[in-house]
């Protein structure tokens, strides 16, 4: 027995009760709840019989009740083979099966890039062209593609989303942003009578996209769900011709030294390199058509800035295009003969950003060679402001209920992006 005297043993027991371990240092979670008088008493020390080596003590364990004269049984500590998920601790990162030494920079749906569009263009080896491509704009201006009373319908949609759809006087952005996007898509879908191939599309949500690529010896990954996505049975036709694609060889990507191109991305060592479009094999709608990204938080600091939203749109569209290209043409890096086109629309309920991305090459490690192309139409207002209650000054209505500064051009572009590929 290490401590022969009873007082020393009691002192040790008191230390243990106070939360201090055997060496006197407090153990983790050392505070013990409960009034001292209500705490459970510590177990009595084992009988002196156990100190004699080679002797088998006779205990009352088999009798299932106390028997004076027999030794108190000492049971092995109970080992629960299952921990509830609430109390499970994760193993240290080094022991995770997917741990790799090389760090990977992951872009997920809440990543805000510091340099915005410039950084996204460098990461995806893309050349920016301001404004939507001619093909798409011609769809917008073609009067055959217009819906009857288009402006009236769009105004009704704005009224419905901003004022009518809820019993509150002034609905919040979290409710009106998805309502307005859904209603605009429903309005675009009404063209199905004129273009029956619009029926070969389906909407999907919460699909987990995952693609990885090398960019000048840094590994970059896009991972996560981007919200609602429109998938089609037929791929989008390429927009830029072969000559324009060849001409991008001369374009030099803009760098932003001293800012590292991976700033804003999440660095992690536990990742999976396999590509995943978010859908299994055999999915009847394999080609991603348009991604709809909504910024619907009520508070302004929680929403992305327009520049950061455009960067997110570029990266997610690129991720979808790259996963699709690797699925169709294999994993080796090359210039694609049949470029992959993906569109994206980002909005916060009032301001729209339109994007068309054409993936020309999967050779992204070097800075030279053919670049990908992206056409961006940024900061398209659908309306300037919406008055939910009339503004009354000196008993005269100065501003009636409704939107101010309505721009029908924005919906025409939205419709054009929707009809692209089906007309």
């Amino acid at each position, binding site marked *: 027995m290490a401590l022969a005297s009873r007082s020393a043993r009691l002192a040790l027991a008191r230390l243990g009760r106070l939360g201090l371990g055997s060496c006197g240092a407090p153990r983790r979670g050392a505070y013990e709840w409960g009034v001292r008088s209500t705490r459970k008493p510590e177990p009595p020390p084992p009988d002196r019989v156990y100190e004699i080596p080679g002797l088998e003590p006779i205990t009352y364990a088999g009798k299932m009740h106390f028997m004076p004269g027999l030794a108190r049984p000492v049971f092995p500590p109970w080992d629960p083979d299952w921990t509830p998920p609430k109390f499970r601790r994760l193993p240290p990162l080094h022991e995770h099966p997917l741990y790799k030494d090389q760090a990977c920079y992951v872009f997920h749906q809440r990543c805000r890039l510091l340099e915005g569009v410039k950084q996204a263009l460098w990461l995806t080896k893309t050349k920016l062209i301001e404004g939507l491509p001619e093909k798409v704009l011609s769809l917008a201006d073609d009067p055959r593609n217009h819906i009857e009373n288009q402006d009236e319908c769009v105004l009704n949609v704005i009224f419905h989303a901003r004022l009518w*759809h809820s019993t509150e006087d002034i609905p919040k952005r979290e409710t009106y942003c998805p309502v307005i996007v859904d209603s605009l898509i429903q309005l675009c879908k009404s063209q199905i009578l004129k273009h029956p191939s619009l029926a070969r599309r389906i909407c999907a949500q*919460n699909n987990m996209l995952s693609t990885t690529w090398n960019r000048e010896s840094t590994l970059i990954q896009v991972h996560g769900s981007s919200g609602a996505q429109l998938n089609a049975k037929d791929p989008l036709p390429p927009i830029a011709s072969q000559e324009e694609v060849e001409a991008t060889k001369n374009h030099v990507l803009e760098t932003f030294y001293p800012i590292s191109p991976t700033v804003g991305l999440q660095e992690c060592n536990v990742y999976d390199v396999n590509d995943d479009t978010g859908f299994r094999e055999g999915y009847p709608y394999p080609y991603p058509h348009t991604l709809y990204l909504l910024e619907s938080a009520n508070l302004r600091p929680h929403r992305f800035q327009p520049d950061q939203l455009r960067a997110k749109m570029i990266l997610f569209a690129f991720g979808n295009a790259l996963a699709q290209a690797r699925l169709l043409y294999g994993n080796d890096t090359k210039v694609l003969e049949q470029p992959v086109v993906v569109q994206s629309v980002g909005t916060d309920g009032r301001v729209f950003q339109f994007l068309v991305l054409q993936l020309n090459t999967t050779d992204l490690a070097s800075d030279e060679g053919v670049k990908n192309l992206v056409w961006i139409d940024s900061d398209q207002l659908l309306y300037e402001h919406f008055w939910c209650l009339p503004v009354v000054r000196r008993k005269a209505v100065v501003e009636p209920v409704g939107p101010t500064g309505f721009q029908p051009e924005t919906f025409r572009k939205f419709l054009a992006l929707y009809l692209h590929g089906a007309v």
Partner: protein
Amino acid sequence: MAAARCWRLVLRGSGLSLHTAAEAAVKAPEVTGPDVAAAPVARYPPVVASLTADSKAARQRRVERWQATVHAAKSVDEKLRILTKMQFMKYVVYPQTFALNADRWYQSFTKTVFLSGLPPPPPARPDTEPAPALDVVALRDAACDCLLQEHFFLRRKKRVPLYLEHEAITSPFLDQLVASLTGLLSARNPALANAALDCKRPVHFYWLRGEEIISHGHRKGRVDALRYQINDKPHNQIRISKQLPEFVPLDYSVPVEIPVMNCKPDKLPLFKRQYENTIFIGTKTADPHCYGHTQFHLLPDKLKRERLLKQNCADQIEVVFRANAIASLFAWTGAQAMYQGFWSEADVTRPFVSQGVITDGKYFSFFCYQLNTLALTAQADQNNPRKNICWGTQSPSCGM
């Protein structure tokens, strides 16, 4: 002096109609002097009950004065405001309920007759050309695609556990199904192409039906109307701008009787609460898409088939579907009628028709509802032969 007396009389005249009636009676013979007097003009003011006395006649007169303000309201918003501004304790009716035999109770609350099967098809008009053949194969493919996408093809972040399957898988599947089928069928039905599609928008309705004697409180012993409120949230609903045509004429008499319950609604169980009285179809009154087409409801996990079978309530499976349909569709059609200005004293002049599809993800039931009357209060229902009609199918016939 006389002028001052006249001035005081005129100022108080707005409240006391006796004096204004007297002045009108005095002035009338001078106005109609040259014309032949058609009816003899009374020389004395009309004998009416008092307004402020503590008597049944006075209460009746006050009620009529309130009803006159509703009739005289200029806009529908104002009318709804007057009807719903006073808050009292009311029964909160839940369309999706576990209560036993709730469909019979809801039929008595809403004066609805339930007929099995679907309503008779409209007579084919000879002048219109026959509709194009329905492409059932394409519709079936679209439905299968939606089902497979949610249940199989879509790779989600984490594997969805069983208790979350309902909201994470079945709910987006129903959204997709409604969207795809609406798109595909809009070729045959142009109204669907211009329809508005709502996802999980609230529908509210407030109505009065029947009377009770107040059992305790400072108004003990007096007669009080029973008030009900439905706050529903259909999973999807389609709203159109033109009303659906009626299934049967407005005064169609159905031989089936409405179940009469002999106990108070508290026995259902139904509980009383006092909060805002709202009437809402999914949008406010200014929306041009103010008529309903179809509602889609998803039954929660709590009312699923396996659970009811485990509780030995196999006969309640159909009851759950029917109760949901009757309550939700009555609330929706009633709110649509009130948006057009009808209420219990101004009964509907044309029937309001809506449809409903109720599902638990695997089994579908189809319902059609025709609202023929909104006059459900004790006063308006005295000589009202009209009944609301609900047609419905059984659920096991359409399992997915």
